[in-house]
């Protein structure tokens, strides 16, 4: 009895979760007639399917050319994530292993400084970022966006990695130093190979937050550089061609949906429990 209720609850929530995606999927095969005919769900039964929406992704009528924003998003997200992971991992290792002190400032305060950046509303930074990038001549460029995204992602990387390194026994790197490694070699040859799960989790979060940002891409780039969310949202006008909107939305969120499978695997293996506290 109780377990039946349990299954009903789980199935209901699953339906709620996938509903928007399924709606997008079915809409992506519609034409103008299919859309204006009211809400229909099944091809052939409810509406006559067409591939117009999907064709529009590659320069077809009424859509956007999705290839270029896709590449831009890939480049910006992966570069910013990579830089954040490198800088964040190094800083996190330092904060986990050494004692820093400057006046009343101690390690925990520095860690807090990193993490507290997440509290900053994007709008507070938008205007100065705009002027700063303008000054540097980096407005509407990928490099400018990468710079901004590093500021957004670095705190995430530091936060996850400090916790992770705190769980790696200190004696391992001490042993490496006694074996003749400098602290950097100990980090690189011994600690890092044993920290892959943490790095994986941190990278994942960086990619999610980088890929999904809209506001900075929207305010700091215009024509030369265009990231996916901006490209898709640009279709969001009153005379929206819903079919190409749906197709481009699905293509944009698809890679990260794959991450969900991966996250579940980490979760079931217990890796995440150690990395998130």
């Amino acid at each position, binding site marked *: 009895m109780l377990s039946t209720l349990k299954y009903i609850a789980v199935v209901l929530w699953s339906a709620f979760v996938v509903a928007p995606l399924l709606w997008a999927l079915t809409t992506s095969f519609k034409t103008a007639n299919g859309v204006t005919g009211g809400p229909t769900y099944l091809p052939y039964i409810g509406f006559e399917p067409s591939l117009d929406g999907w064709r529009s992704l590659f320069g077809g009528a009424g859509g956007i050319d999705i290839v270029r924003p896709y590449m831009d998003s890939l480049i910006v997200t992966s570069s910013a994530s990579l830089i954040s992971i490198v800088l964040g991992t190094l800083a996190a290792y330092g904060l986990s292993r050494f004692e820093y002190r400057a006046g009343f400032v101690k390690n925990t305060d520095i860690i807090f400084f990193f993490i507290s950046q997440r509290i900053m509303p994007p709008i507070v930074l938008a205007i100065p970022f705009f002027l700063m990038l303008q000054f540097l001549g980096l407005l509407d460029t990928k490099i400018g966006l990468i710079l901004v995204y*590093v500021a957004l992602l670095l705190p995430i990387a530091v936060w996850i990695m400090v916790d992770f390194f705190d769980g790696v026994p200190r004696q391992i790197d001490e042993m490496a130093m006694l074996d003749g490694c400098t602290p950097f070699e100990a980090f690189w040859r011994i600690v890092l190979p044993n920290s892959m799960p943490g790095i994986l989790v941190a990278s994942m979060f960086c990619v999610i937050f980088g890929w999904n940002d809209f506001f900075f891409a929207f305010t700091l780039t215009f024509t030369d550089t265009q990231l996916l969310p901006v490209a898709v949202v640009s279709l969001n006008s009153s005379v929206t061609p819903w079919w190409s909107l749906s197709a481009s939305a699905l293509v944009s969120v698809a890679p990260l949906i794959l991450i969900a499978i991966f996250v579940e695997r980490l979760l079931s293996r217990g890796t995440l429990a150690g990395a998130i506290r």
Partner: protein
Amino acid sequence: MGQTGLRFYKFSFLLPGFLVLLAIILFPLLFTIRVSLSGWDAIAPGLNWAGLTNYAHVFSDGRFWEAMLRLSAMAVGTVLVQYVLGFALALLVWRDILFRRIFRVLFLIPMMTTPVIMSVIWRTIFHESLGPANDVLGLIGLGPYPWLTSANFAMAAVMLVEIWQWTPFMFLLLLAGLLSLPREPFLAAAIDGAGPVRTFFNVTFPLLVPVSIGAVVIRLIEASKIMETVYVLTSGGPGTATETAGYYIYIKGLRDFEIGYAASLSITYLVIMIVLLTIIAKLLVRIFIGRSA
């Protein structure tokens, strides 16, 4: 006395990241503070000196304070619902349920998707005559409702989308917490003959208090920035019915180009958020951890 070598390494680990963040965040922040003391706008761009006039103006700006209030209500409301739902879902697929790994994957999906892009899809769903929201409700004899054109329904729509998007985050942290719990307390409770409800309130929940506080605080921080969903779904409308602080500042600064005033609004916004979030975090810790300790 000491290890000269160590000092060098100690700083080469920390400094690159630290300085990069400092440069990217601190200068803009200081700059914003300076701009907030200027009358920079479309007519007179530039860093002139306006003293605290902007702040005086902020004080009497009813639209801003309404937006702050609305944002707080939205943030607290959605985060509470997300927490309860996320916890319930985590408990449901924690153990003994068929296909639990498939359900876990499904439950995680929304947080992976791009919020603005999904908001665009949600906008089609909420379409009054062509969207499925009213269609499905019509099946059980409800509606049709003016989802995006009436004040109350627009608020509900925005909050629904936020809940859809971010309940998975709560679910993820709480499930990770549940999966890392030791087995012994549950065995002890079972031996004592505690039923599921008592086990939950005496064992599960107390053990998850630290994770819960962390998750709620993180979500409150993120929710205090709500603006993209609003931008896409309702553009703050109808009227200003769904306008949040961030969105109002965006309109003032980047649309009306009242840069100086927008800067003072955003500093006010930031300070209030930091104060409120700190108080909430401290209160949560005191209520739930202070008492059991």
